[in-house]
């Protein structure tokens, strides 16, 4: 990074935050602080919902997924459009009719206070940990690659978002997210076109796609019924539906975004905007990763994409092993390059036999290069069991720093920070609101003034910001970052969704039954997650936790209510 890159980075981030705070100055009554001014346009809501979901991890880690595993991860989002329609039809009108500040207020009105507090507590635990990952993820990658101090990166980016979120509230968050997502789109499109321009002369987008397909990187849809495959059409559509329904329908960080709409219409259109553009956006980011894979077929990549981890073991016996692997990789990569040239030439000649033979040779050499990458990880793990051996999160940033011009580097690093700040702001805003509205107002002081509740919301936001920064300072993740976030969400989301579905559709079930059912269902999900390495039959895709948690909560609620006996029916206004 040079001076120009730092000007782009700091100018964009500080400028957006300062401008949004200035635009929203003086709007500090409780309603405006928690739900915005009530004038928010549907496009702002749509972009805000998108920005809250798409964190830095999305833009930093997802291209690495595309590079390593191809486009299959896009199926994870197949349930999203269906879930968004469901939220717009069922959840949203009830939230607006009851004029709630948080989704969990609805649980209190429909059931009782203990169920409301359970829903809010599950959200706080899950989202509080998630907020730590959100801030840790870009910091670990960027500090490693840039040579910045990790603690300074975490604290500086964390404090910036805490300041503008706590000061400006919901409206400032929505406004900053709108501008930040603009910067993000501009940066990703720039990266895409620069990448295409960097491909060798004579290799266009069509050739690049053909080459990526030749290496099985463009399998976007897999209709396999095998339950142990992490991403298939079925797990993505069904499991992804429950994940997205729980996230968009019951996670306060999203509910707060669309409740900011001036009317039901604005909120609904904001959600539908995401229903249309969510899958194409994720496809585009994964495709970028697949094209980076193609780029590295013409430009020799490092064997291992985390340079700091590699450098830490550059000496001694481990260093010698790594240098031997580097040498073998260089030879194999040269052979693969020759195989690719032979394959492309055979395709151009229209010679099917030569094409098939060249492709088989190319794939065989590719297997060897992949084996050498795995061997590097094994050598690093043997030398240091705590070594960060998963390097897919470093693929995109390595490409940016090694191959993009200055100015564009600054823009892309701004993209990562803008995405981190935008999703973090949404999360902190929701964590602060939920703590103030669902806990402080109902347990500590019920009759305080609006000014008092605004002050408490601000301090709660600061508190959760500091918790997230603290978690990020001590975090150490083995999983690919984007998967870590989805796994954490899947462990909690199914049960929370079950609570809301019982509330909406099972009018005869009361608070006590659903409360104990939710606790039992959550215990079941914990058991499934922690026993998956002990019992191989439990080692299935984490996306199914959403479905199982939800089904267990609903089923156990019915069973317990049957055992407990009938109750007075729910108020019709509070159910779908």
């Amino acid at each position, binding site marked *: 990074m040079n001076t120009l890159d730092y000007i782009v980075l700091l100018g964009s981030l500080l400028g957006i935050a300062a401008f949004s705070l200035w635009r929203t100055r003086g709007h500090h009554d*409780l309603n405006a602080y928690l739900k915005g001014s*009530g004038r928010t346009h549907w496009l702002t809501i749509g972009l805000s919902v998108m920005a809250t979901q798409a964190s830095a991890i999305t833009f930093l880690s997802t291209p690495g997924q595309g590079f390593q595993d191809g486009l299959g991860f896009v199926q994870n989002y*197949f349930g999203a459009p269906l879930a968004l329609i469901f939220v*717009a039809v069922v959840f949203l009108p009830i939230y*607006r009719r009851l004029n709630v500040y948080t989704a969990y207020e609805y649980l209190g009105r429909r059931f009782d206070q203990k169920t409301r507090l359970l829903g809010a507590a599950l959200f706080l635990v899950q989202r509080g940990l998630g907020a730590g990952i959100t801030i840790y993820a870009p910091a670990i990658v960027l500090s490693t690659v840039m040579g910045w101090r990790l603690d300074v990166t975490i604290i500086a980016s964390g404090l910036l978002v805490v300041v503008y979120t706590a000061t400006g509230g919901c409206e400032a968050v929505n406004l900053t997210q709108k501008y930040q997502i603009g910067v993000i789109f501009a940066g990703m499109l720039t990266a895409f076109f620069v990448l295409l321009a960097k491909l060798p002369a004579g290799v266009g987008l069509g050739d690049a796609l053909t080459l990526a*397909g030749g290496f099985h990187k463009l399998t976007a849809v897999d209709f396999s019924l095998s339950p142990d495959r992490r991403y298939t059409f079925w797990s993505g559509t069904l499991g992804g539906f429950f994940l997205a329904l729980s996230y968009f329908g019951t996670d306060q960080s999203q509910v707060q975004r669309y409740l900011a709409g001036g009317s039901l*219409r604005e909120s609904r259109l904001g959600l539908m905007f995401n*229903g249309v553009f969510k899958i194409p956006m994720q496809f585009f980011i994964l495709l970028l990763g697949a094209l980076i894979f193609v780029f590295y077929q013409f430009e020799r990549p490092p064997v291992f994409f985390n340079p700091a981890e590699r450098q830490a073991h550059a000496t001694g016996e481990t260093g010698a092993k790594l240098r031997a692997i580097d040498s073998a990789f260089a030879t194999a990569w040269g052979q693969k390059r020759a195989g690719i040239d032979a394959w492309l030439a055979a395709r151009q000649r229209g010679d099917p036999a030569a094409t098939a033979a060249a492709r088989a040779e190319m794939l065989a050499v590719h297997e060897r290069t992949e084996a050498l990458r795995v061997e590097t990880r094994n050598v690093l793990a043997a030398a240091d069991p705590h070594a960060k051996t998963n390097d897919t999160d470093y693929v995109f940033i390595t490409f940016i720093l090694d191959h993009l011009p200055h100015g564009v580097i600054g823009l892309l690093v701004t993209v990562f920070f803008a995405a981190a700040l935008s999703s973090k702001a949404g999360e902190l805003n929701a964590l602060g609101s939920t703590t103030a509205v669902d806990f402080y107002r109902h347990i500590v002081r019920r009759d305080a003034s*609006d000014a008092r509740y605004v002050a408490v919301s601000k301090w709660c936001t600061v508190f959760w910001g500091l918790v997230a920064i603290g978690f990020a300072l001590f975090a150490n993740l083995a999983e690919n970052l984007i998967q870590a976030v989805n796994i954490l969400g899947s462990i909690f989301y199914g049960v929370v969704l079950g609570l809301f579905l019982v509330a909406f559709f099972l009018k005869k079930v009361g608070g006590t039954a659903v409360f104990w059912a939710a606790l039992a269902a959550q215990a079941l999900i914990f058991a499934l997650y922690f026993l998956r390495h002990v019992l191989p039959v439990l080692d299935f895709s984490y996306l199914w936790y959403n479905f199982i948690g939800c089904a267990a909560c609903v089923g156990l609620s019915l069973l317990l209510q049957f055992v407990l006996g009938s109750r007075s029916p729910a108020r019709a206004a509070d159910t779908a």
Partner: protein
Amino acid sequence: MSRPSAESPTAPPENGEPGPPAFRTWRGVYGFVLGCFVLQVALLAVFTWMYS
């Protein structure tokens, strides 16, 4: 705590027309989003088949 109404007096009715041109009902909007989803999955399936 004061709790203002979700709607201002000048706001359009909660279940009014969606607003964007070509959509007169919410059912049409949902149908459009659903259609986009089906089209996107179909295009991705074709894309997978073309480059596999």
